[in-house]
């Protein structure tokens, strides 16, 4: 038959075409290795679909540790800077392809989870509004605290989101690139969810402003977020090492400041003002925090950079130095944020100094176990908390 196919004929379904094709196919497969990327070292007992679809997508040469290619880059930046290079980070690795997302998320599972969260959010908002739960929110909490300060926190999340653009470009491994892009995407999702809450409130409580003008003024000019704004600006735009960007954003700043603001302030205090809406959104951000912690722990701890067989000691020294750099800025951000309590009534067990100190202790205790201890970072918790508490007017 003619080899010029007639338009619309498909080799799978057109009998004549299919006959020619089937006749050309060998009776037995030509190779028995039916595992793609069989040469990849699995993290678990067997190679996961996530590893198959992700590992070694990065086409780096072997002079970037872990790379399978050879030679130089075929096109470089103006002046000759390489496409990707070891010099883009102070940290060293024996294999930049070693990281694994503990949740094994490649694109499909990642968007499936988020799509489910979106559908659930929509159903929740419908039910919440239908039964009029918004009536229970204290108007002061809603119009002052949520409007201005939860609103201003949008910019915190948006700035941190932008701190992931350069690491998404510069990182040296494929699993790293996927993870970094995804945890950055979660941060802009957080910012959008808080704006969603504002839009929602404006529909339920006529007069509640959905505009971002006042929150933005609070973020850019107010005192409560001054330290936070300065830290976020530096993480976003003044940090050029992609590992330092991720470390400063997630391991130091968000694990302390973000956790305090979200979990210990908005989540805890909201219920005392009859606010059952904000916890719904905050808990989604806390889910993302938890997933991000899994990722960043794998990048830096577990089998990651701090425990690299060849460079672990050196990397831990750098990570401690970065912590020395970012902890004081985070402390200042917390100290400034504590000014918010002056705007609230003193509620025993909730907003009084003892409760705030307990909340700070919870955050720093978590941080010590989850992060600081893993690079043998020593810090004086009591002294830091004492400094932070000076922010309570």
């Amino acid at each position: 038959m003619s080899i010029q196919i007639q338009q619309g004929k498909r080799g799978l379904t057109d009998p004549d075409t299919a006959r020619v094709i089937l006749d050309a196919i060998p009776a037995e497969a030509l190779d028995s290795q039916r595992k793609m990327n069989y040469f990849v070292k699995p993290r678990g007992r067997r190679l996961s679909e996530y590893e198959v679809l992700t590992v070694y997508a990065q086409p780096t040469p072997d002079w970037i540790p872990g790379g399978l290619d050879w030679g130089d880059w075929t096109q470089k930046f103006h002046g000759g800077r390489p496409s990707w290079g070891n010099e883009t980070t102070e940290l060293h690795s024996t294999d930049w392809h070693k990281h694994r997302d503990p949740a094994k998320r490649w694109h499909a599972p990642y968007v499936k989870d988020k799509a489910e969260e979106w559908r659930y959010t929509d159903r929740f908002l419908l039910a919440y509004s239908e039964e009029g739960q918004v009536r229970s929110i204290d108007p002061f909490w809603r119009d002052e605290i949520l409007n201005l300060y939860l609103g201003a926190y949008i910019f915190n999340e948006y700035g941190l989101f932008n701190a992931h653009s350069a690491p998404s470009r510069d990182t040296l491994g494929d699993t790293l690139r996927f993870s970094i892009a995804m945890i950055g995407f979660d941060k802009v999702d957080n910012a959008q969810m808080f704006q969603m809450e504002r839009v929602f409130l404006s529909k339920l409580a006529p007069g509640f402003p959905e505009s971002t003008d006042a929150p933005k003024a609070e973020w850019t000019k107010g005192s409560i977020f001054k330290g936070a704004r300065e830290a976020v600006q530096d993480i976003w735009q003044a940090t050029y090492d992609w590992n330092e960007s991720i470390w400063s954003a997630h391991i130091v700043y968000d694990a302390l400041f973000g956790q305090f603001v979200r979990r210990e302030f908005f989540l805890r205090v909201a219920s005392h003002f009859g606010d059952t809406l904000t916890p719904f959104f905050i808990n989604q951000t806390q889910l993302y925090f938890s997933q991000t912690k899994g990722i960043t722990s794998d990048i830096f701890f577990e089998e990651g950079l701090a425990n690299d067989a060849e460079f672990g000691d050196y990397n831990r020294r750098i990570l401690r130095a970065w912590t020395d750099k970012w902890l004081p800025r985070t402390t200042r951000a917390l100290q400034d944020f504590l000014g918010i309590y002056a705007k609230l009534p003193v509620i025993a067990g909730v907003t009084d100094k003892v409760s705030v100190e307990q909340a700070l202790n919870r955050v720093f205790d978590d941080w010590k176990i989850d992060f600081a201890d893993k690079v043998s970072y020593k810090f004086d918790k009591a002294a830091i908390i004492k400094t932070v508490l000076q922010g309570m007017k």
Partner: protein
Amino acid sequence: MSISAATKAATDALAANRAPVSVNAQEVHRWLQSFTWDFEKNRTKYPTKYKMANETKEQFKLIAKEYARMESVKDERQFGSLQDVLTRVDAGNRVHPKWNETMKVVSNFLEVGEYNAIAATGMLWDSASAPEQKNGYLAQVLDEIRHTNQCGYVNYYFTKHGQDPAGHNDARRTRTIGPLWKGMKRVFSDGFISGDAVECSINLQLVGEACFTNPLIVAVTEWAAANGDEITPTVFLSIETDELRHMANGYQTVVSIANDEAASKYLNTDLNNAFWTQQKYFTPVLGMAFEYGSHFKVEPWVKTWNRWVYEDWGGIWIGRLGKYGVESPRSLRDAKKDAYWAHHDLFLIAYALWPTGFFRLTLPTAQEAEWFEANYPGWYDHYGKIYDEWRARGCEDPASGFLPLQWFMENNHQIYIDRVSQVPFCPTLSKGASTLRVHEWNGKKHSFSDEWGERQWLTEPERYECQNIWEQYEGRELSEVIAELHGVRSDGKTLIAQPHTNKDGKLWTLDDLKRIDCVFKDPLKAL
């Protein structure tokens, strides 16, 4: 804690107003542009000579969760088809062998482009100042992760269900051996991520995606379906639904710089360089993949090229950007000439170097030779005769001891590598426009095959100094290189690459190659 009168009235009203309401994506998105703020250090880490406007909008207006919903729906359809009906009808094993081999290359090489586009759009996300523009690039970052996974999935599927898993199962490792890889990196890897951010956007979005994804991702599905492959259309057409957004991003990049003075000075030169770079590789490689990598033919590549590249892109798409000062690339006319013979020239070389592939190649059959001659008059006298000679000398048979590469050497046809595009060419055999040009720089000789690439080199040689396969393998014996770079099947001795797809034909081994004692030589050293 005073309650304003308006708030009190609103709160009171709630007692009676309990209609279910929610918030849609657009209601959130319309605030996105206000999410940023000015501060002293707010500057990109990837400078560009252009200035991107602060108020640039995006066209797709997605928020994170809505993006996820949309993609998830598409994934359900695609993976549902692959894992259910296509598996039940054994579709992975009902593909013509020649096309099964082609997809080893096409899927993996497209994966490289998609993967590098993650980094490229990460750079653009950093470079743009307008939050909406950042948001458009961000969605593309996620899309490119999706496409990387999807392309990987095609190889994964063929590994699991196909007739020849070798090459599909290790393409990420074995792709580095042969002569097509470095050129691939130039267009689909480094060209997207290394340079002025807007120049990279022009490479990726304005040329790579708006021009070549149509022949690469759409036309390939027609060739695939004709040759029994329903896996590729299922995946690639799903990829293409996202590409529209990427083309829009490229359009918005141009819109964002349209009022900048630099645009009138540099934009058309950057566009011309990007177009020539991309076409230099894709025009021959895609034509070769379609016409020489299939049994059933859809249409001559030159027609496909003319429709998608010359008319649709060079005319309509670029025409739409005319109001921003964008002109069709000056090299378009030369590219059109390449679309006729360049893929035939390249196949001659690719077949000669078949042991370095991670796929099986097939010489045109008599029936195909007729088709080539009918569509490219003069084909047989130039190429067909050579293939007949190679076949007569037993090039497909391991016992023959004959590699077509030897024929090139015997007849003093040197194969050079164009330094800028990394595409191999043989000036004494090219029916296309390739001519040899040599420059010395930084203590080395560098060969070039055309004026447009040569210009890029002369302007910025430090960007394109990458060594080529001749320099890398110089003095080494062929089988030794193949073994070192894992070009063998699971038995440890049979080559992944083969010079035929005949189901009854014998397969070459490392020993067969070793007997020939073929040693790599850098032709530039003889000049």
